[in-house]
């Protein structure tokens, strides 16, 4: 067993409130009620503890983090603690005044989500009319403020034909970086998997388009590409290993090894209002449950990639097999892999496009 490493980054999910209703939202199905959100002082303490523990970055996320009126105060606190601050936003609730005060508080980067390269499909996916124009206006505000901008596109069967347009748009709005992130199927996305899953052929075309764009745009746009792991040969190194790099704090203060961990029913998570972050990182049952390699079953245990992918994704193992301690079915060596691929291919072909929108009470 290697020594416990300090975490690198904190994902602060300030709220689950959001004007958008994207059917692949990474929030849990049971959305946290506004009344249960942590107050400012608790967030500031948690942010300071994260910096003290070794975190270098904080990502302010949600829900839509700008609905919290104390966001400026939290950004200022993180900046004072020496953290690199990133705002992950839908951009529909930001105006020039707010962005100016966030920049003054020390905000260093904005990641702006787009549901598509155009309004028609994008607004159907987000369930919010007028969102696209607001997002474009926010992108301009961010660039006018001199902040670096990442354009985030979650990609799936219903918008993948616009991949080239998405990348062109990222360049046109002055983004430094684009994220082309295939949907990861937990929570809401799992519920909507049949409406989102691409076919293997579509994925191969997408990957080729990204490779060509990377070559064409070197030095102009950094492209991060997240593949859908259902068609992978080996699993992703989920979170860089459970309890190894990342901390996630939920709106009510629950400390999670990843943002989807609450989908693991039966697992208890400590709350930063009750225990220090250092104690939770080091000692909590949830963080230690799948940390390192001792918990692994075969074929992971004797795999030469076990310290590369760390056994893949626990939430996916749970979502597909009902057992979080099994090998990630995305791995070609998993006994569940063939079933996973068949399931994906079948859903891609059936092409049922209706969504269950992400709303309070809809999960």
């Amino acid at each position, binding site marked *: 067993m290697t020594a416990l490493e300090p975490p690198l980054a904190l994902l602060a999910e300030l709220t689950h409130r959001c004007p958008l209703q994207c059917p692949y939202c990474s929030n849990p199905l049971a959305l946290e009620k506004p009344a249960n959100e942590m107050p400012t002082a608790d967030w500031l303490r948690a942010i300071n503890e994260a910096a003290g*523990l070794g975190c*270098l970055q904080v990502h302010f996320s949600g829900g839509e983090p700008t609905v919290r009126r104390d966001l400026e105060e939290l950004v200022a606190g993180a900046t004072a603690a020496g953290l690199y601050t990133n705002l992950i936003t839908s951009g529909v609730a930001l105006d020039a005044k707010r962005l100016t005060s966030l920049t003054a508080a020390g905000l260093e980067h904005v990641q702006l989500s787009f549901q598509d390269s155009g309004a028609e499909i994008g607004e159907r996916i987000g369930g919010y009319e007028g969102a696209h124009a607001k997002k474009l206006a926010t992108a301009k505000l961010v660039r006018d403020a001199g902040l670096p901008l990442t354009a985030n596109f979650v990609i799936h069967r219903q918008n993948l034909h616009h991949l080239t347009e998405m990348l062109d748009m990222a360049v046109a709005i002055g983004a*430094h970086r684009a994220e082309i992130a295939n949907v990861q199927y937990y929570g809401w996305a799992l519920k909507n998997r049949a409406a989102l899953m691409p076919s293997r052929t579509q994925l191969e075309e997408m990957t080729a388009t990204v490779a060509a764009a990377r070559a064409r745009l070197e030095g102009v746009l950094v492209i991060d590409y997240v593949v859908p792991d259902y068609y992978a040969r080996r699993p992703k190194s989920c979170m860089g290993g459970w309890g190894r790099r990342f901390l996630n704090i939920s709106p009510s203060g629950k400390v999670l090894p990843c943002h989807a961990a609450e989908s693991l029913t039966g697992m208890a998570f400590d709350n930063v209002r009750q225990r220090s972050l250092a104690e939770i990182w080091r000692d909590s049952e949830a963080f230690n449950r799948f940390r390192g390699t001792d918990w692994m079953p075969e074929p992971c245990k004797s795999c030469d990639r076990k310290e590369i992918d760390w056994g893949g994704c626990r939430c996916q193992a749970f979502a597909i097999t009902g057992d979080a301690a099994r090998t990630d079915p995305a791995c070609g060596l998993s006994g569940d892999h063939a079933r996973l691929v068949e399931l994906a291919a079948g859903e891609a072909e059936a092409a049922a496009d209706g969504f269950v929108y992400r709303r309070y009470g809809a999960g």
Partner: protein
Amino acid sequence: MSERILISMMSIPRLAPHMRLRHDKARAQWTIQAPERSFVLDPVAHAIVSRCDGVAQLDAVVADLCDAFPGAPREVIEKDVIALVQNFVDKSVMQA
């Protein structure tokens, strides 16, 4: 659309705005904090990046490094400097 910038001894590079050169106390190493990524700098990379201040031309940076590391041949240092700065400029971590 902007063109790719090619680095030469005449380039005057610096960190891009909002890239932060930061000492990581918990892990005793130098890093650059960048949007959703973090670059670990080994001592050589730190020696190069910390000299790229947006004022010094790269040939001056190389001359300074030759003084600081008298054991290393100038052409090796020059090659290392170009490779590192080009890589960081391509990744929009540095500007030149």
